[in-house]
């Protein structure tokens, strides 16, 4: 049984998605999703334990040995991301019950869970597969279900947002498949480990073009500045629980895929020495950090503000990868995890506000510090984490990022990283001032969100604190994964 865990991880949510679509009952669909997400969490944790104990797992699908058959390959990096996916799904599903019931039409609820499970299955598949074409298939599964999830948003503008995402996402997917096609053309293989062996280390035009297509394609998926234009609308108009889920998982998996291609498939030597991709990525990340943070400052809708903040945070993650050092990679992988915790908790807090107030515009948050103390406290702690205050996960990320920059004497990078933190102070504090210092304007008193929404929110908030106070576990796994990537394995 336990040797089949890698495939169960994908098959279980896939099957559950089909079941929920047929069942036509929101409550039962939710229950199925809940059970599935906890099962996924259990499987991914046991995989992580197994990987940390015995090393990477390779699972051959249907008994066809690679490079002919599809192989699943789970190392410490993918296992770490899998646990993140499972954990986020397991926390957000309980939140979704009431939040989705309030925001969606009755008839759509079970479709929502079906799409959510499909999306989860796709993300899990992307993370665990060792085959680039299989990765593309899962990418499409997760993307298409994500478009659906966003389109279900309560506001009619959600349709427009989903459509925009669909166009941009499809362009990205096309680029990715072109890149994969070129790799196949040159090497005759689709297996990652095999590709890593076969790709010639010296400059080769087709391989270089393949790298370019893949980088831009994945860049679109992960909303790397300036390819981020789909993200703010999508995050703003999606249902609250969906925003939290996508912000905490989809971009992280896209970053994982980028790291896989750059470090494992193409190899560090080719990507960064022959092609010098870091010279393109680092400036883009720095611009993304600054531009994302500045745009965030001017937003009137707090969800949109957090979406722009995500653009900046993605810049941090990719920046860590592009420093191409052990510390830098550790920083990137850690921030991938930490950012999911921060944004997850912040968007869940937004979900609580949406549930009670029916709006997440800044103007409608007056006086919420008093009427929704637990929700706003969660927002403040999540915000402090985003800023990078010590004893939160944000501090750990910033620590490694600045250390990585200082090691290489890149003072501008260190400066921009910290400037980003300070800009975060500004946009987080705008909300704090409105919520705590301005009197409520509405006629009827606002009440605190129900406990079933608060518990998941606070679970993520506490995770922000826990992994910020004792980061030995996460930083140990991240630096192990970084070592693995650097080893060219």
């Amino acid at each position, binding site marked *: 049984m336990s040797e089949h865990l890698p495939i169960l991880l994908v098959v279980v949510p896939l099957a559950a998605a089909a079941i929920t679509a047929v069942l036509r009952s929101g409550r039962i669909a939710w229950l199925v999703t809940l059970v599935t997400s906890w099962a996924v969490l259990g499987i991914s944790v046991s995989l992580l334990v197994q990987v940390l104990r015995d090393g990477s797992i390779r699972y051959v699908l249907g008994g066809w040995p690679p490079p002919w058959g599809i192989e699943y390959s789970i190392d410490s990096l993918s296992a770490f991301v899998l646990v993140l996916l499972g954990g986020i799904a397991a926390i957000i599903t309980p939140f979704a019950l009431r939040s989705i019931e309030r925001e969606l039409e009755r008839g759509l609820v079970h479709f929502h869970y079906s799409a959510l499970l499909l999306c989860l299955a796709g993300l899990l598949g992307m993370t665990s597969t060792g085959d680039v074409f299989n990765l593309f298939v899962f990418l499409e599964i997760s993307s298409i279900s994500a478009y659906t999830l966003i389109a279900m948003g309560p506001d009619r503008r959600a349709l427009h947002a989903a459509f925009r995402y669909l166009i941009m996402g499809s362009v990205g997917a096309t680029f990715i498949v072109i890149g994969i096609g070129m790799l196949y053309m040159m090497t005759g293989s689709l297996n990652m480990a095999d590709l890593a062996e076969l790709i010639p280390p010296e400059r080769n035009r087709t391989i270089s073009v393949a790298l370019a297509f893949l980088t831009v394609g994945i860049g679109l998926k992960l909303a790397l500045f300036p390819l981020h234009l789909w993200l703010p609308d999508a995050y703003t108009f999606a249902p609250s629980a969906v925003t939290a889920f996508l912000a905490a998982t989809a971009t992280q998996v896209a970053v994982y895929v980028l790291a896989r291609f750059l470090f494992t498939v193409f190899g560090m030597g080719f990507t960064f020495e022959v092609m010098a991709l870091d010279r393109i990525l680092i400036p883009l990340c720095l611009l993304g950090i600054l531009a994302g943070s500045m745009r965030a400052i001017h937003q009137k809708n707090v969800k949109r503000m957090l979406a722009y903040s995500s653009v900046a945070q993605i810049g941090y993650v990719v920046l860590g990868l592009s420093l191409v050092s052990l510390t830098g990679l550790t920083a990137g992988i850690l921030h991938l995890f930490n950012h999911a915790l921060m944004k997850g908790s912040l968007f869940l807090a937004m979900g609580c506000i949406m549930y009670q107030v029916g709006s997440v515009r800044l103007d409608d948050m007056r006086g919420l510090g008093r009427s929704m103390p637990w929700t706003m406290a969660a927002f403040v702690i999540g915000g*402090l984490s985003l*800023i*990078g*205050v*010590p*004893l939160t996960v944000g501090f*750990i990320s*910033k*620590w490694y990022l*600045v*250390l990585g920059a*200082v*090691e290489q004497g890149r003072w501008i990078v*260190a400066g921009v990283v*910290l*400037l980003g*933190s*300070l800009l975060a*102070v500004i946009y987080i*504090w705008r909300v704090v*001032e409105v919520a*705590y*210092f301005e009197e409520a304007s509405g006629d009827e008193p606002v009440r605190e969100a129900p406990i079933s929404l608060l518990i998941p929110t606070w679970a993520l908030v506490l995770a922000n604190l826990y992994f910020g*106070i*004792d*980061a*030995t576990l996460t*930083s*140990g796994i991240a*630096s192990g994964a970084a070592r693995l990537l650097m080893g060219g394995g």
Partner: protein
Amino acid sequence: MSPESLTLLAPSIPLLGTILILAARRHPDVREAVTLVTAVSLFASVCALYPVVAGGGRPRIVLLEVLPGLALFFEVEPLGMLFALVASCLWIVTSVYAIGYMRANKERNQTRFFAFFSLSLASAVGIAFSGNLLTLFVFYEALTLATYPLVTHHGTAKAKEGGRTYLGILLATSIGFLMVAIVWTWHLTGTLDFRSGGILHGAAPPGVIMALLALYAFGTGKAALMPFHRWLPAAMVAPTPVSALLHAVAVVKAGVFTILKVVVYVFGFEALQPPVMTTWLLYVAAFTILAASLIALTRDNLKARLAYSTVSQLSYIVLAAVLANQAGILAGGSHIAMHAFGKITLFFCAGAIYVATKKTEISTMDGLGRRMPLTFLAFFVGSLSVAGLPPTGGTWSKWYLLVGAVEGGHMVLLGVLALSTLLNVAYLMPIVARGFFLPAQDGWSDGIKEAPPLCLVPLCFTAVGGVALFFFPGPIFHLLGLLL
């Protein structure tokens, strides 16, 4: 109880106090009793540590490991002992005063006020006891955040504005400079522990040491070195007990304490000798001393004047630290205590005057001294202490500062210090003189009498304390002597 567990207990007491204060929010009398009991037990536990540290011990307790090889831990050494003693002793006095002040002014949200006050003290003691730069940074930031709701206590537009400046400057400097300095130190030395003799000596070329010194000096925004001093006057929108304990003692002293610790235990004196240039920083501090004093002269609002006076006095300590010689450390360390007693007295007086008369502007305080003789007498003693004149404790720190400047061969600084003393007298004494000697302005003074006893007794106590430090400075210099 073992010294190690006392080290852990001391910062936990005000933390527990915060929770109890919140729990007792419906019963103001119980709540205030909790504050007082917390303050007294904190002081008692810090005092219990004194014999150990004075005997040369350095009790140490590891809290937890944050990152591989990097732990949060407490280690009590003489400077931290001194800072903790001053802060916890004055907290008792301030608590009494705050209860009187908040009740007399019928302030709102008193539970929040006392809870965050207690939390601020926990952070301050955490700073005092921190055993490495990471621990210090954690509590440094905690102190910034815990004092924010106190600064913005009134919730008015002005309070919000002041809070922005406060948070903006303190976070910008600490995240932008101090954190870089800490990460850089970690990169160079592989440790962040405070060690006698420093960790940076020989670990980096002079240019890097200078850059680090600049990052530490300006990164510690709480030390209010110009041009990063604006937060301190901005923080004066807070209720006066906050200004008194936090913005004359705990917060600002946490800043200069950080600089002293960094000079003594991170750089070490040897790392700051030529060819490393420190003279420029001495002049930045000297400039801050004079410029802030001059600005203080122009301020009519009493609290604003005192705030600029604090900016100026803090740079005495920065100056003393950067001298990096024995007399400098004696001066800097003792000034933490001496200035604390002087300045808290002045703020208490400002608050007492406000409680009794609702007056905030100096120009309206003519003749007030005859109605409030004790308050103005205390103000006089506090002024002497701040100016560094006998018979107050401030004399000793200024004495050692002069000695340190001469030893370091900085004759210009002697002139600066002399001029600064004159300026101190010039901006503080007129207040006393107006109070006692000018005739009262028309009519209003009839109903005025001293502030309630809860306000009056603390300010008399701190004034007497300032004088006592002149006659009995022994324990302070004994502690600081252990450093040399």
